């Protein structure tokens, strides 16, 4: 059954769209990730203009993060104060990200920027994650238990030297607000140019840089993603009018169902195995994007997006 998408200005099969949402939702439910990094490339691959894919996916992530954050909120797993600081940074980052996006779109270089950002960030995060999980699996086989550092030692000296210290009770931290501000800003830029929530950067940064306890990391990350992707949606709507609500809602319908099933499958797998699988998937998307950049395209010409109305 075809459905005409008024903003993307093309017709897509409604079941295909819901199915895409379900598959990505299944994977994101299984691995506990947002899935933006899978959905945006998939949408582009299916022929949705990159600008529409990025902006619409931001919109869908807002919805997906609300349901996730609600569950963590009920378990007291959200550090609101930390979230606010991250959002403040994220708002600035997302604003500038959207400006850069609009500028590069007018130059016809937005596809290149999206591809480069994916290759760079998915490559490095996927690589690190894969290395870490393989090491954990090997250690487990050998029966070595990793030493756990005391919480006080987890911060590097330079972090303590930063000014504007704030107390984050829920995270049991007393650190400079500059650090979460900077992290939030960085993730905001990624959200605006890649059509992702940025959890794959945010969560490791919260654990390894900020030293937040793991029980509040995911909830706070989701809490922040709601607001930053909501702002990103508005920025993209104002700048380029590329948010397709209908596409976003259809994807969400599929994602909600898929995520429920994925979460059940995910419970049956071990943490390290899950992370290794996720890392492989991340690297796969990265490799696909990278190959497309390097291999000579069969068609060197393309019709630009600008001025198509």
């Amino acid at each position, binding site marked *: *059954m*075809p*459905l*005409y998408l*008024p*903003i993307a*200005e*093309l*017709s897509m099969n409604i079941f295909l769209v819901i199915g895409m949402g379900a598959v990505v939702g299944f994977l994101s439910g299984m691995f506990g990730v947002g899935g933006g990094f899978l959905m945006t490339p998939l949408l582009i691959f299916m022929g949705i203009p990159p600008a529409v894919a990025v902006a619409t996916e931001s*919109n*869908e992530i*807002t*919805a*997906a*993060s*609300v*349901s*996730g954050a*609600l*569950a963590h909120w*009920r378990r007291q797993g959200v550090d609101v104060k930390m979230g606010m600081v991250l959002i403040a940074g994220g708002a600035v980052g997302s604003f500038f990200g959207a400006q850069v996006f609009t500028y590069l779109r007018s130059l*016809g*270089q937005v*596809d*290149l920027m999206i591809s480069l950002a994916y290759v760079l960030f998915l490559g490095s995060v996927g690589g690190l994650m894969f290395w870490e999980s393989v090491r954990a699996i090997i250690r487990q086989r050998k029966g070595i238990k990793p030493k756990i550092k005391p919480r006080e030692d987890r911060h590097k000296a330079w972090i303590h030297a930063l000014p504007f210290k704030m107390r984050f009770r829920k995270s049991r931290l007393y650190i400079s607000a500059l650090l979460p501000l900077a992290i939030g800003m960085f993730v905001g830029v990624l959200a605006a140019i890649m059509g992702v929530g940025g959890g794959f950067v945010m969560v490791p940064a919260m654990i390894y840089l900020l030293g937040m306890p793991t029980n509040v990391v995911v909830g706070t990350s989701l809490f922040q993603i*709601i607001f930053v992707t*909501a702002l990103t*949606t*508005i*920025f*993209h*709507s*104002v*700048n380029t*009018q590329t*948010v397709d*609500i*209908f596409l*976003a*809602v259809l994807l*969400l319908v599929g994602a*909600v169902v898929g*995520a*429920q099933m994925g979460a059940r499958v995910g419970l049956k797998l071990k943490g390290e195995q899950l992370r290794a699988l996720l890392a492989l998937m991340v690297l796969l998307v990265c490799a696909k994007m990278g190959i497309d*950049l*390097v*291999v*000579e*395209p069969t*068609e*060197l*010409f*393309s*019709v*630009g997006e*600008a*001025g*198509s*109305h």
Partner: protein
Amino acid sequence: MQKLRLITLFALFMFVGQPAIGLVTDLSNKRIEIRYSFNGADLILFGAVGSSAVDPVNDDFDVVIVVRGPEAQTVIRQKAQVGPIWINSDSLTFPAAPGYYAVAASRPLADIASNAVFASYGIGFDHLPLLAITPRGLAAPSSDFRAALFRLQSNQGLFRQEQDSVVHIGEGLFKTDIRLPANVPVGDFQVETFIFKGGTIKARNRIMLAVDKEGFERAAYDFAHGYPFWYGLVAVLVALTAGWLAGVLGGKK
């Protein structure tokens, strides 16, 4: 005075007597509405050659039908290798390229008339007049960019030539199919019909066709482009509500 009136009458007669009067065309649908279920449209163009310079019963005549969509600024970009990667480097802007261009004919174009004839009327992929923005102002585009525009738009189903044929039904009656793909641009379309005989144009006429978004699709599009901030806000509110609903429903299981 009398003389002037006679001349006017004669001129009028000449004008009326022009071949155009003998050609009538109509479309099965003159207004295409893009709604949620829109997946392209197929139209039928009917035409009849009547009392004109062409005698429909005894003469063989050829029909060429040209459909032109609304003109819009179109950018063609060319990739080049920079270091290890391929990036868009060169680009050419056509300030007014048609968003849709279809040529249907009763026989292969080459059999109907010479290139010179088609060129003088700007009919066909090779003769459609197109200008590009160059450093020296508006000028003819380089052949590779021009060819790329036609190739890319043809791949999208937006440019078509000699894919749909005009069928003679008999007694001067003919018909053809016009295919508009799902990604067709909205706006006013011109449908021009040319009657050829012996390699020259004997009659021509033009009718209009409108393609527009309707109902909900029109409202959503206008809202997004007219009030982008409010549209974005509504998109966020929809997402928040949908996410909250999903969370409440999912949490109960």
